[in-house]
């Protein structure tokens, strides 16, 4: 094979992997939108908050240490060596469930029957609140995320593919980050689990009922408030997974909340109400933007990925406004 063709294959492969990373963020948006019709602007910040909390537990950081120190002149920093990763993940999940519970008690229950734009604005406020709260709780410094996942180029793939190119071409073999492969595996498990949960459990069926029709679900005795807590908890779990994967790449810091920007075109393309849509949308965006950058980027100055993802999403929007897998929009007079 020619090295050029192998390079294109490498770009496609890495695009698919990048797409999976985008999908991990998009999934959280889909879950909440599907169940409550809320576009959760705070999903990116939830990923940041979950990642901060996980690292805080892992490193034994005292929450609100610098606030307490400033108020009482103490010198708190860490309470010990920290918790093992598995326990830290479980505890972080507990914090995200507590967050979902408090959110429902303090915010969402007061917003029932409000217009979608009001709910959207509520989540904007929530995003800013959580960003500040996370800063107060865990500090603003850049933290290292280490949950034991391997990273770096796959030497196996590199050595296997190195011989595919013609001799004398100096082809070094294909590159793929092992962390991305893990992310793909995690995303597959996550989607299968979410699908099984919504299809075969009582709570899952209740979630689907609420997603289909709030009023009808209420009339058969499904508690909207409980469902909201469950949905936001699951979204918190998805945010934790996204936070771990993205945090392992860039460290845990406040720009982690900006990963939401990468999820928006995925949502537009895949549809706001479809879990498979989030995955397929992510893959199309990932491959599309990487191929465009590879073939066209160099001719027009590069750095095309951010805007091209939106152009691609808008293109699909022209033909399917609800996204590839979104519920068909039917307006009856």
């Amino acid at each position, binding site marked *: 094979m020619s090295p050029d063709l192998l390079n294109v294959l490498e770009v496609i492969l890495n695009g698919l992997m990048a797409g999976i990373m985008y999908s991990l963020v998009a999934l959280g948006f889909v879950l909440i939108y599907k169940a409550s019709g809320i576009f959760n602007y705070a999903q990116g910040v939830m990923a940041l908050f979950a990642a901060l909390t996980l690292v805080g537990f892992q490193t034994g950081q005292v929450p609100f*240490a610098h606030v307490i120190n400033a108020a009482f002149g103490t010198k708190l920093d860490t309470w010990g060596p920290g918790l093992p990763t598995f326990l830290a993940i479980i505890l972080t999940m507990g914090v995200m469930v507590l967050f979902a519970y408090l959110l429902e008690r303090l915010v969402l229950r007061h917003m029932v029957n409000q217009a979608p734009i009001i709910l959207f604005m509520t989540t904007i406020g929530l995003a800013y609140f959580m960003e500040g709260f996370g800063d107060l709780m865990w500090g*603003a410094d850049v933290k290292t995320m280490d949950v034991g996942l391997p990273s770096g180029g796959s030497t196996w793939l590199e050595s296997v593919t190195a011989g595919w190119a013609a001799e004398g071409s100096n082809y*070094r073999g294909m590159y793929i980050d092992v962390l991305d492969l893990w992310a793909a595996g995690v995303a597959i498990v996550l989607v299968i689990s979410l699908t099984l949960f919504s299809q075969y459990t009582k709570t899952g069926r209740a979630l689907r009922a609420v997603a289909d029709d709030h009023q009808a679900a209420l009339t058969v005795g499904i508690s909207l408030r409980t469902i909201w807590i469950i949905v936001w908890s699951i979204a918190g779990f998805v945010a934790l997974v996204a936070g771990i994967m993205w945090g392992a*790449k*860039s460290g845990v*810091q406040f720009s*982690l*909340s900006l990963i939401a920007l990468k999820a928006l075109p995925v949502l537009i393309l895949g549809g706001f109400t479809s879990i498979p849509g989030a995955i397929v949308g992510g893959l199309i965006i990932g491959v599309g933007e990487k191929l465009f950058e590879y073939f066209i980027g160099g001719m027009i100055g*590069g750095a095309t*990925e951010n805007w091209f993802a939106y152009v691609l999403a808008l293109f699909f929007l022209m033909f399917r406004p609800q996204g590839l897998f979104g519920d068909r929009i039917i307006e009856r007079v």
Partner: protein
Amino acid sequence: MKLKKIGLALLAAGVLVTAMPAAMAELTFPMLSYRTGPYGPNGTEFADGYADYLTLVNERDGGVGGVKIKAPECETAYNTEKGVECYESTKGQGSLIYQPLSTGITYQLIPKVTSDKIPMHSMGYGRTSAADGKVFEYIFNYPANYWDGASVIIKHLLDENKGDLKGKKIALIYHNSAYGKEPIRTLEELSKKHGYTLKTIPVEHPGQEQKSQWLEIRRDNPDYVVMWGWGVMNQVAIKEAGNINFPMDKFIGIWWAGSENDVRPAGEAANGYKAATFHGVGSDYPVFKDIQKYVKDAGKAAGDGKNIGTVLYNRGLYAAMLAVEAAATAQKMHNTKELTGAQMRDGMENLKVDKARLEALGLPNFAPEINVSCANHGGPGLAAIQQWDAKEGKWKLITDFIASDREVIDPLIAEDAAAFAKENNITPRECK
């Protein structure tokens, strides 16, 4: 009798009120800082260093020439609009110097500070041609600018290659912004002189996803990669470089891509990564003992004290030190304790910080000597190279301070400053 007492009390109060301004005289150094937002981790360290040094001067020395420094802090979140708002809301407080720590804010403030006659110091950032004091009367960017940084990096590479870069491939990976694009012209000019080929690779803000860029670098296999990044872009780039096994000692960042925050998330993989710097590293300087005693132990530190001695903390401290020295110079020049913006400008234009002075300040060999003048607002233009030791978890200086290539840089500064003067109908002033 009662009336007399009331009259005396009123008189005393009047005297007190009249005497107040003199007693309350202060030198105002507003801090346009950012402790929040995506660049907050870096902004916090710089702001802590800046604030702590000013606190030290107030607590240990009683201020500058006996006048205390006031440093009202305004949060910009590294946002240009907020930065301009901060400037507008603080400039009326008798402000003497602005250090916005953002190239975007600096560009917006250039016409404003010039018309308000308040000096602005963009130390190692901002508009590079502001080094030309004949055109930019109130803007300073000493001790080194981006073009100095680019030139010093190339000089370091020349040293590594026995003075010959012919046929070498250098890739510049840069933040796709005014800041990131600053070195391109200089690196292009230097490539003509030294015969290397330059490839520029932009990264879109914020830089969390750089897969395409590093695949391109892996395919091209350049001899060196130079980075002009900021914030999360740096951490991701260093991590990706490690992933593709790019040799870290051939990866060099500008001074805004050379803090502890940039290398720590990559762990061991970051070992050997290099960056330019225009000041010393670590906390092994006598001034830090004073910071500990008068600031941290006294409970007056700006942060929790964790940042003391980090690269960006030291940079903030250095910026504050240069501002204090300029204020002291201005006080002597104009024989006054209280200063105006124009007088502060004079102090900055006559700033001299030599070896002996650095030693007296508790910062021996911390930075190169500085001589600012009316025509040269850019200072000496020297920078050193630091290297990250992942095992010890600290930066180490591996070169002396290296002079930039004035033969290439000075004409570029003159050309850009002349273009700015023409665009803005500025007649360059005479400098004796």
